[in-house]
């Protein structure tokens, strides 16, 4: 058994479990074996002093739901080995929140262009600093801070 740091409940009555970030892969594996076979989403929350990764689980047998949270400072183990669907969710969390998933097969930006500076869902992301995407000759994106040809 993996130790649970603390438990809480959300407003809609779903149990929230806090786990240490080192144990997250083991803990989720246990939960998956217990019947939580669905990974609905992975997301992150930026609490300014630390980041939190949130996993929403669902058991398709009983319909039970579970929220697993882990505090991190920007790095956590990837769960792509447990759920194939975790791939895109982790990429998105990396893209928008800058949480690095160790062991992810293809941790690249997914929604924003390759080469984007910063992670926009962080609370300290400078919104007034505009970035522009341009197309390079080979068809890949390049990001710059000033308008270039084409704009």
């Amino acid at each position: 058994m993996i130790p649970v740091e603390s438990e809480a409940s959300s407003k809609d009555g779903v149990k929230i479990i806090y786990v240490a970030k080192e144990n997250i892969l083991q803990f989720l594996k246990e939960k998956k074996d217990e019947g939580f076979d669905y990974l609905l989403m992975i997301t992150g929350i930026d609490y300014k002093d630390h980041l939190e990764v949130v996993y929403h689980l669902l058991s398709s047998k009983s319909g039970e739901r579970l929220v697993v949270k882990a505090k991190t400072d920007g790095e956590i183990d990837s769960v792509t080995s447990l759920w194939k669907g975790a791939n895109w969710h982790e990429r998105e969390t990396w893209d928008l929140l800058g949480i690095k998933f160790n062991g992810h097969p293809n941790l690249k930006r997914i929604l924003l262009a390759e080469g984007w500076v910063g992670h926009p869902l962080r609370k300290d992301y400078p919104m007034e600093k505009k970035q522009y995407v341009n197309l390079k000759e080979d068809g890949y994106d390049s990001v710059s801070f000033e308008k270039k040809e084409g704009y």
Partner: protein
Amino acid sequence: MQDKIVEVNFGPQHPSTHGVLRVKVKLDGEVIVDAQPIIGYLHRNAEKLSEMGYYPKAQIYVDRLDYAAALNMELGFVLSAEKLMDVQVPDRALWIRMMMVELNRIASHFIWLGTHGLDMGMLSPFFYCFREREKVFRILDEITGSRLLYNYFAIGGVYSDVTPKSLEMIKTWLSDFDKNLTEIENIFKKSYVYVARTKGTGKLGLDDTISYGVTGPMLRAAGKKWDLRKNKPYLHYDQINFDVPSQQAGDVYARMLVRIEEMHQSARIVAQVLDKLPAGDFYNKKYSKPMLVRIKATGESYIPTESPKGEFGIYLVGDGSAIPYRFRIRSPSFANLSAAPAMLIGYKIADMTATLSSMDPVFGEVDR
């Protein structure tokens, strides 16, 4: 041997990608050996913008997620927000919401059916579907005052009551809806070419479906009878009779059957709501809009709803202010689309268009 493999980019502008999907496909002749969907061409920062304004303000961004079924999106948001802010909703509003959501589900599936026909190489069903969809839109237009994006559900009720005229419209529309839909679905079901092309195409087994987090009609087509309206009823779905269609095959044909049966069932739900619609307030008078922007909320909530594409919900985290601290959208199309490589590799180019359209991705929701 390397020369035989051709890399083709389908999209971001391609007639059958339903928006701005780009699929990087490696082809060996006509056969797909590798397919990687590339998304993000419609990333409109809905989450960031929602975290910048008051709770009710986020609704305009929620509206524009799955623009084909905007009311379903709004429902996910208002349910979650009401839970977080402890807002009570009058009974009539709940019933109205249910009816509107089902109407919009039908409209959304009509878009899917029409464009699916287009992708399979036939133009006419597109027009028939849009003709039928316009009939739904006239009703929605009458009730909400808008055609596509409604901003109709409010935290604490709905913005306007259904009028007697609109109820009449729904009744006349219902009287021949099933007949019209059967006419259109027979174009598909009775076409030898369509059946031959779609049976066994784009297969996704149940294990893969669950592993990818695929929900909605695609899950039901893969053999699991899972519908949140039945399994975890919200609104008043537990007081209504309807069936959850499911198929075993998990291919494009099964998805077509499931979606079409869902449309019939939605019409059934609308008919029952018409009978059971209670009198009373449609809006909680305590929470007018100026009030709502003052409500401070803490904690977190996530109410899953069954949108036309699958499980949709909004994960709200409040920090004790009137602005959501974290606003995460669980979009079904995003998860469904991530399963695309598993459905495409090994099939032919022609199957790709069939499979992609059978997933029914809407890019406002995938890219958010």
